[in-house]
């Protein structure tokens, strides 16, 4: 009889041992003090919510230091820059003075729009981007003002190359033509007001 009881106790102990071990491990883990992660233990890149804002502020300063005063004012007030096209279609175009035969509207992270300043006719949109070449994975973009500056530098230095590399479409594929026309109207108003202001300043001198 005693032997049978001892055998039953031994079997119960063997069956209960794993459960008791798991409970004890959980209890120890719950009571262990929390310590900060050491160097190398957390290889996750923490998100810095201010990084993009700071990058955009630096990009605006860089853009301002590179483009003409008129172009900076345009970007600050309207959100895009106009860049004159370099090519003349025919000899007549060469005598247009300051008004080019065609021009581009440069938006941040949107296609470049070619149009005729004289008539306001929209010609085409050129989809172009400046992708991350470092191969670090992820798909980062330039800050908005850097994107505008990159397009401005590419267009003013080597218009043919950037246009060759871009994907050309009729206006309307990514940009709403009505919105672009409204932007042209805003630009005309902006230039009119700016011209009036400059005229007034000259009169005061």
């Amino acid at each position, binding site marked *: 009889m005693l032997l049978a009881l001892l055998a039953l106790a031994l079997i119960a102990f063997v069956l209960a041992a794993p459960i008791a071990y798991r409970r004890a491990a959980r209890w120890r883990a719950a009571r262990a003090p929390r310590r900060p992660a050491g160097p190398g233990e957390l290889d996750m890149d923490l998100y810095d919510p201010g*990084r993009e804002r*700071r*990058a*955009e502020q*630096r*990009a605006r300063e*860089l853009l301002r*230091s*590179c*483009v*003409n005063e008129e*172009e900076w004012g345009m970007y600050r007030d309207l959100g895009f820059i106009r860049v004159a096209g370099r090519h003349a279609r025919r000899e007549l175009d060469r005598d247009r003075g300051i008004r080019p035969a065609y021009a581009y509207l440069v938006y941040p992270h949107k*296609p470049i729009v070619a149009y005729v300043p004289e008539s306001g006719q929209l010609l085409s949109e050129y*989809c*172009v*981007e*400046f*992708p*991350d*070449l*470092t191969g670090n994975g*992820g798909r*980062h*973009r*330039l*800050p908005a003002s*850097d994107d505008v*500056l*990159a*397009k*401005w*530098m*590419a267009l*003013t*230095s*080597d218009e043919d*190359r*950037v246009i060759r*590399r*871009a*994907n050309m479409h009729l206006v309307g594929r990514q940009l709403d033509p009505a919105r672009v026309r409204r932007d042209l109207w805003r630009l005309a108003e902006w230039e009119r007001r700016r011209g009036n202001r400059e005229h007034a300043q000259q009169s005061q001198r």
Partner: protein
Amino acid sequence: MKPGHGEVLLAEGDPRVREDEERLVEEFRRQLDEGMWAAVPVRNPGSGRREARMVKQYGDIPPDSERVIFFPRASGG
């Protein structure tokens, strides 16, 4: 210009000092080898307007330039 970061200072120095120039040349070549485009903001002597000039060799940089801006090359979006 670095996607995700914006403007990053890569190297600076006086190109008239030999050690500085070697460092600037090395960085210039490294950027171009990585596929970046390099441009220098200049003022057009004719119109007086600002524009950029693309440079493909260190020797193409105008001597009075204050900076060279590297940016990712354009591709169809």
